[in-house]
């Protein structure tokens, strides 16, 4: 019955119109529609605030349940290990930003089917900066930061 209705509905409208209508009706969240598409707006943003807007996580609340493991001093900004653990129940995604990079958004990770709120990677940092992490859990956004000093030249002076 439902499927029959849906089919009639789909036939009666243009494809683009259908998606817009479905979004308006709350049948589809925009995130689902764009899931496969690279978030160019957020990755091209030149400030962390704009990148966060592009990811719909502006206004994330500070949380002590996000642990950022990164060196206090990184001698080589080209390879800075960063490990993020979210202890917030129901964590669905982790985003990493470096405030002082030309494009602050580094990466976004989405978890499903038993994947834990944890990610470990290595990032590039142009200079000493705050590394900001945003976690999405239960539809809300949380954030934490850690400063990493980058020693250019690598002598560790």
């Amino acid at each position, binding site marked *: 019955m439902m499927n029959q209705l849906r089919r009639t509905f789909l036939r009666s409208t243009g494809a683009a119109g259908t998606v817009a209508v479905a979004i308006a009706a709350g049948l589809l969240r925009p995130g689902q529609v764009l899931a496969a598409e690279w978030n160019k707006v957020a*990755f091209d943003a030149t400030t962390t605030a704009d990148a966060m807007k592009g990811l719909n996580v502006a206004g994330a609340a500070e949380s002590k349940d996000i642990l950022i493991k990164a060196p206090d001093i990184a001698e080589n900004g080209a390879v800075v290990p960063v*490990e993020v653990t979210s202890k917030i129940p129901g964590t669905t995604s982790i985003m990493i930003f470096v405030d002082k990079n030309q*494009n602050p958004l*580094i990466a*976004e990770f989405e978890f*499903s*089917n038993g994947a834990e709120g944890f990610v470990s990677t*290595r990032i590039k940092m142009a200079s000493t900066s705050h590394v900001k992490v945003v976690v999405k859990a239960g539809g809300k956004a949380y954030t934490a930061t850690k400063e990493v000093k980058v020693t250019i030249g690598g002598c560790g002076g």
Partner: protein
Amino acid sequence: MAEGMKIRATLQGDVADVKALMNHIMETGLRKDANTGKLIPAHFINHVVATLNGKTVLEAQWGAAVAKNPFLGFRVKGAKAGDKIVINAVDNHGEKMSGESAIV
């Protein structure tokens, strides 16, 4: 894209600890060629999808600031020894790479 993704997945209790190393230049597009003075075009992995026995467990979007030869570590609860982890990656040129490993 150069060949090669190495994956190691080990079981700790019922949690699979997955570590992957991908062979990729991860060119930012911000560097200049020393000889010509021209910008070297960006070339980086921007999509990564990991599955456990065919089910998606991790979907990532990356920018150019993930370090060269990217390292990715993640954990999946409810895994068993012998389960299969597959990781697929695509870069901004549409070139694909993938790797797989059984959990030990």
